[in-house]
């Protein structure tokens, strides 16, 4: 896919590449920590999909809002969460973004407009519409990005959330990260149509559909939808074609995909593509230094997470109710 925008701003590309690389490395370290028993429960990695979150969030202003699913670490980092806060949450520590109470699926960072990762498919889509509703109500010019998987399209929350946003003209962009599978089920067995973007038609809103291989292209295309939302309160449904390189979660043996299929997709890794683009403009020493700074940041985050204290039971009452505990 040719990039038709203005000439590449290499500093900008480097920033996006750095974010993608940071996410990739954090996820790899999280997988290692999971194998060592330092992380528990479900762990859904974003490896392979980094260009979606990083490109989309690059199209936002800092006052804008993001809501996503349980596959949320990468998006949290792209929205400005520190690697320390993210990793410490995975480790279940008090210094984590949700004080170790939420875990992998529930990354929250209110100050940065990261309004959470959610575990029930579809449940967060109307909620995201509500955040967009509040922006319109307060007339603050904020835009909400709502991410979800291809597996969310059949569920009611998808239709009710988009229906309300379309009806009430809310400043929101619905981003379907179509990685072709919901757990072990290919899209062909969950949807009667091969294009998620088709669903926009019934709700009378614009749609877009493209492959997320070039992070700058993702930024440009989501940027158009963000502009429509911000300037005209028109929601857009964007289907971004992507692929996860790992299993659905750590417990998924992934037998439903052939090694050849996964390998072929890894050959088109958006992270390498961004690096290759950058290599045209930067010398190796500079790239190495950038990557070394990421390695340092990740190692620091893991150490921080490992050494942080655990939350104590005193946290449970004040995080259940605001005000006196009502039992």
């Amino acid at each position, binding site marked *: 896919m040719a990039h038709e925008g203005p000439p590449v701003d290499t500093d900008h590309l480097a920033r996006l590449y750095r974010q993608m690389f940071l996410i990739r490395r954090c996820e790899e370290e999280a997988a290692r920590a999971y194998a060592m028993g330092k992380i528990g*429960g479900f762990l859904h990695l974003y490896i392979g999909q980094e260009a979606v979150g990083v490109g989309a969030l690059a199209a936002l202003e800092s006052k804008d809002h993001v809501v996503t699913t349980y596959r949320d670490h990468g998006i949290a980092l792209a929205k400005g969460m520190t690697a320390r806060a993210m990793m410490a949450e995975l480790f*279940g520590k008090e210094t984590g973004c949700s004080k*170790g109470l939420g875990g*992998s699926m529930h990354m929250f960072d209110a100050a940065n407009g990261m309004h959470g990762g959610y*575990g*029930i*498919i579809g449940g967060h889509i109307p909620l995201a519409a509500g955040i967009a509703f509040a922006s319109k109500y307060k007339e603050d010019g904020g835009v909400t990005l709502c991410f979800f998987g291809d597996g969310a399209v059949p569920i009611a929350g998808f239709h009710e959330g988009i229906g309300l946003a379309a009806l009430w003209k809310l400043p929101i962009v619905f981003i379907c990260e179509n990685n072709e599978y919901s757990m*072990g*089920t290919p899209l062909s067995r969950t949807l009667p149509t091969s294009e998620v973007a088709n669903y926009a038609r019934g709700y009378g809103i614009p749609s877009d559909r493209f492959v997320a291989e070039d992070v700058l292209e993702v930024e440009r295309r989501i940027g158009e939808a963000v502009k429509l939302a911000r300037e005209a309160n028109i929601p857009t449904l964007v289907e971004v074609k992507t692929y996860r390189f790992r299993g659905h979660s750590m417990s998924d043996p992934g037998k439903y995909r052939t090694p050849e299929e996964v390998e072929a997709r890894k050959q088109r890794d958006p992270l390498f593509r961004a690096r290759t683009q950058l290599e045209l403009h930067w010398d190796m020493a500079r790239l190495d230094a950038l990557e070394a700074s990421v390695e340092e940041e990740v190692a620091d985050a893991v150490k921080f997470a490992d050494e942080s204290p655990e939350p*104590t039971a005193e946290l449970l009452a004040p995080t259940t109710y605001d005000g006196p505990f009502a039992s």
Partner: protein
Amino acid sequence: MSRTLRYREALREAMIEEMERDPNVFLMGEEVGHYQGAYKVTEGILEKFGEKRVIDTPIAEGGFAGLGIGAAMVGLRPIVEFMTWNFSAVAFDQILNNAAKVRQMSGGQYTCPIVFRGPNASARQVGSQHSHAMEHFYTHVPGLKVIAPAFAADAKGLMKTAIRDNNPVLVMESETLYNTKGEVPDDQGPIPFGVANVVRTGKDVTIVAYSRMTHVALEAAEKLAKLGVSAEVIDLRTLRPLDEDTIVASVKKTHRCVTVHEGWPYGGVGAEISDRVQRLAFDYLDAPILRVASLDVPMPYNAKLEQQCMPQPERVVDTVLRVVHRG
């Protein structure tokens, strides 16, 4: 003659035998077929019965629960798997308003022979949205039957009864029990609902439990024996209908009662049992009935806090010691 089976194998055998017995029985749910079941309960069933009777659904719990209810009203006998009972919340309206009501609001013209099943209550560190003990919500509803086996043989026998029952039956399984082994008679037939089992006899206190908590209660009883307290443990097996006769007979003997379940203490199965015991055995009670439940907060991710929130054998022991006036 009997064989040692895992809990998940016992459930699977019951479904296979009932599907062989009645061509109107079919199985439907997320990943039940090609993926062989998210928790491998339905492994091999697709290969045995084919895609007509083993149906992989999209993520649309409200949709496929409702579809199952409709099919049941006109003669089919669906088994609907929820990947976990947490996701049944999305289908709650269908179960509450359609499955439980269609018989009465039609003046008895319809039956609704449907089974809803899946793992219930906590797993390990899966966080607040994935750790619900849903039986408390459903036992509230007239028109539904709710069962919660703790052992492989009961899982098989009760599942068979559930499939043959002409009413909606909700089968609460447990992810943490799926791997446990038990003796299952070769000719294990249907086990009638509403019959509890005394799984350990004792004279000082009656501990009433079900599902995984039966094992926790047995562990507690073992510890109590070392402290000189003889605990009788009742495994309810079915929650609605509830075998109050067995509970009351036991309390008349022991004069003390403690209930143990996952899920919150406000209302729920423990409160129901307390009501019945104080009504039916008031004159026999030597101490207040105490309940061991999950702590009254959403389930935290952090491993230690999660363990603190869940009922543990130690908490059962402490509670029992309080009712026998030794704590």
